[in-house]
């Protein structure tokens, strides 16, 4: 019997023109690990919310959802609360009480579990998730990763049989995200809990998943094991291919006949086998110009020191940085190293106690109060939501232009132009809080750009947005560069920096350690580098992006005969594997 069975589910939100879900059917076995992926707005969340009655959205619905063979509506609230665990996107929103220990017990309290059992379960959960050390803390003291782990633990305390996670790591940094996803995998492996997870970052999830469900426009377009999903997507000519992990993308980019790799390790081995009988003629890309420090930087920091309070330690310890005009400069580095603080010191929110900041060759103190943020500098904060102060995106954009002595037509014209540029024209009349992460990011960018900044500071612009929005964002940024805007970006997203930045700096312990062009920068690193580089560095030391690796593979392609032979081999292998499987089934 299937654990969850969705039968021909169609759903539309009230007053929405089209169906949010259309004819969705899916059976999920007990103990399975299902990954749901799709662009934002494709209906992933709507689908997952249908798996728990209290979260099911209002609207028009046909079809049914069966839980353990019974219609979901007939399963009592009490049973659903305990057996179906649901983790949402924002770690902060889900925490109800002020103390970690209380939060852990919240679900058990609702179920009316007796004191003794509660104590045991809470102790068990705290030990399993490694929460003992912060058991007595206030939730405000926790990091984002800890908060999300707490949400998971407090749900696991009710001993659910199925765990539904809706983009649980979109607000976390990569290390915390990997940690969280490993815990989910551990739960799946050790307790046999069914996992249904939707995610943008597929690198960690892919190897763990039993099946991948791809949702597009409210329909399920593919349900396959991870190794086969790429093939299926290619048949469908779906653009979802670009959101698959690097090894998979490179595999399909080269048109190999071997088995599809999922992890960097597999990718490395696959590449070795793929290249085994080919003469490696070209192993590196055309030589790039070496990185030169700009002589006339648009933005310069000279040994900037900063601390938040007198007694606290220094956050910035002599940061020196030069950013070339009209370029995209990326800064990568771990959590809490002071990257965001550096951006704040550039825009004058944090005033350094030593060192100087120059904008266009002029010291920041020399700018008058109003001058700085008009036509000169603007910053997009990490949480784009915090930028919005009005009821609609349009009002928010108009607010930026008020008091500038512009005529109404001029204002409207300007807003329309920028909305077009940032691809938010259709969103102008929506409430900023109703937008998805990627949409918020673009609307916020539009708002910031209304300042006409010459220098744009971005704090984690790719956080929580999917690969399509990332590409869109990159295009916008590149266009700005061409118009002469200098962009300084702080990011955890190594792949994004490798692909689009003009220069990349490593930030560590309150200072910039090194700056170089992305290719030189990432090919020097062995940990802090892209997946493509990690899987191919033994053959192509300076290939950094997926495209680099694919291009090099093509350049070294073998002659026709060898390819034909290889195709034959691959087919034989597949056939024998198929036979083996059939035997196993019998």
């Amino acid at each position, binding site marked *: 019997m299937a654990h969850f069975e969705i039968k021909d589910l169609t759903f539309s939100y009230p007053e929405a023109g089209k169906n949010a879900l259309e004819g969705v059917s899916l059976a999920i076995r007990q103990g399975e690990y299902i990954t749901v992926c799709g662009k934002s707005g494709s209906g992933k969340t709507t689908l997952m919310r249908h798996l728990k009655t209290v979260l099911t959205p209002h609207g028009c619905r046909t079809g049914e959802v069966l839980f353990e063979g019974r219609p979901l509506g007939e399963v009592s609230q009490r049973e659903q*609360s305990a057996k179906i665990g649901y983790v949402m996107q924002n770690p902060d929103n889900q925490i109800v009480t002020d103390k970690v220990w209380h939060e852990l017990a919240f679900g058990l309290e609702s179920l009316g579990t007796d004191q003794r059992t509660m104590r045991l379960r809470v102790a068990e959960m705290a030990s399993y998730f490694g929460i003992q050390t912060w058991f007595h803390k206030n939730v405000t003291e926790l990091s984002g990763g800890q908060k999300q782990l707490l949400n998971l633990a407090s749900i696991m305390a*009710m001993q659910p049989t199925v765990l539904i996670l809706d983009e649980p790591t979109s607000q976390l940094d990569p290390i915390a995200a990997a940690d969280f996803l490993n815990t989910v995998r551990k739960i799946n492996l050790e307790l046999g809990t069914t996992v249904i997870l939707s995610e943008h970052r597929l690198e960690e999830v892919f190897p763990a998943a039993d099946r991948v469900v791809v949702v597009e426009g409210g329909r399920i377009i593919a349900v396959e094991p991870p190794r086969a999903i790429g093939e299926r997507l290619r048949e469908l000519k779906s653009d979802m291919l670009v959101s698959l992990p690097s090894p998979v993308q490179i595999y399909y980019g080269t048109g190999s006949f071997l088995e599809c790799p999922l992890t960097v390790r597999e990718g490395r081995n696959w590449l070795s086998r793929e290249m085994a009988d080919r003469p490696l003629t070209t192993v590196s890309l055309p030589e790039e110009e070496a990185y030169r420090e700009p002589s006339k930087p648009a933005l310069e920091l000279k040994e900037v020191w900063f601390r938040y309070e007198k007694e606290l330690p220094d956050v910035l310890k002599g940061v020196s940085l030069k950013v070339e005009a009209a370029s995209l400069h990326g800064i990568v580095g771990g959590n809490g190293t002071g990257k965001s603080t550096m951006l704040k010191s550039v825009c004058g929110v944090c005033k350094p106690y030593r060192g100087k900041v120059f904008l266009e060759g002029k010291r920041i103190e020399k700018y008058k109060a109003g001058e700085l943020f008009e036509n000169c500098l603007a910053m997009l904060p990490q949480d784009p*939501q915090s930028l919005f102060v009005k*009821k609609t995106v349009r009002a928010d954009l108009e607010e930026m232009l008020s008091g500038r002595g512009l005529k109404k037509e001029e204002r409207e014209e300007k807003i329309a132009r920028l909305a077009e540029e940032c691809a938010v024209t259709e969103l102008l009349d929506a409430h900023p809080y109703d937008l998805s992460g990627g949409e918020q990011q673009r609307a916020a960018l539009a708002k910031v750009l209304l300042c006409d900044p010459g220098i744009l500071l971005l704090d984690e612009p790719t956080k929580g947005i999917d690969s399509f929005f990332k590409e869109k964002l990159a295009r916008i940024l590149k266009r700005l560069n061409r118009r002469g805007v200098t962009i300084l970006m702080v990011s955890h997203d190594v792949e994004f920096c490798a692909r689009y930045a003009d220069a990349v700096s490593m930030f560590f312990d309150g200072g910039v350690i090194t700056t170089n062009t992305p290719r030189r920068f990432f090919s020097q690193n062995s940990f802090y580098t892209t997946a493509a580089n990690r899987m191919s560095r033994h053959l192509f030391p300076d290939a950094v992006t997926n495209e680099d690796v694919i291009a090099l593979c093509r350049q070294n392609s073998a002659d026709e005969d060898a390819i034909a032979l290889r195709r034959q081999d691959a087919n034989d292998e597949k056939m024998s594997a198929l036979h083996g499987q059939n035997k196993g089934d019998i």
Partner: protein
Amino acid sequence: MRFDSYHPAINLLFFVAVLAAAVLFDHPVFLLLSYLCPFVYSIGLKGRRALVFHLLLLPLMAAYTLYYAAYNHFGITPLGSNFIGNQITAESIAYGAVRAIKAASVCMWFSCIHAVVSSDKIVYLFGRIAPRLSLYLAILLRLVPRIKTYAAKVHTAQKCIGRGLDSGSILRRCRNFFRIASIIITWTMENLIRTADSMKSRGYGLKKRRAFSIYRFDYRDRSFVLGLSFAFTVVVMGVLLDQTRTLYDPEIIINPITPLSIVFYAAYGAACLMPFFLQLAGEWRFFLSTQSRHL
């Protein structure tokens, strides 16, 4: 070792008892004890910072006494008259001092409460009386710091585009302030909806909710209750024997101090300082245990 490791109900019992005593007792010796006990105990809890607080209280007490004596003119012992011709009497000064001391002791007891009783304990105690209310309290305790953090975040974001509370003209600043305030209200509403989802999803609203607590009532708590009730029984006997009765108006009449009354004073002092003594005893025991480990 400290009193905060005891069960919250014990904390509550103790502080209610000593606060009541501090407010009700007018007798000078009892008053002195009410003043000295929290004085010593809060220093034991907080060290030098408490002492600074106590010294700051002294001028306030003096000021209150003078204020009281300037506006109340009862009593039979005139000391002179002030510039508008009103009598200043010894009784009114004495009673003003009594009230000042009472207020100061209550303040000091509250500083002890602040050090001993955490928000957890208050939530727990509320939970025994009104479970739902205590949950709301916990939610509120979570919400307030969250709103503060978000407000700071919005302000920084606005500052970074030149729309903070510290840029532009006064009118502009006011506009910025109201803008930020209104969006924070919207944000709070929005988030409460999300939090409600998470609560419902974890079974909030089912019947038979039970409050979880991390506290246990053990032997140490029981013996503390026994000790405290014994001491306070003695004090209550003293009250019944008119030991605490004192008149200030129109004439100061104090119950004479007899050998028996010393027993009552001792009981009151012991009751008030019981947590302090236990703390000292605990520290001493810990000291001994570390000593023996080295041998």
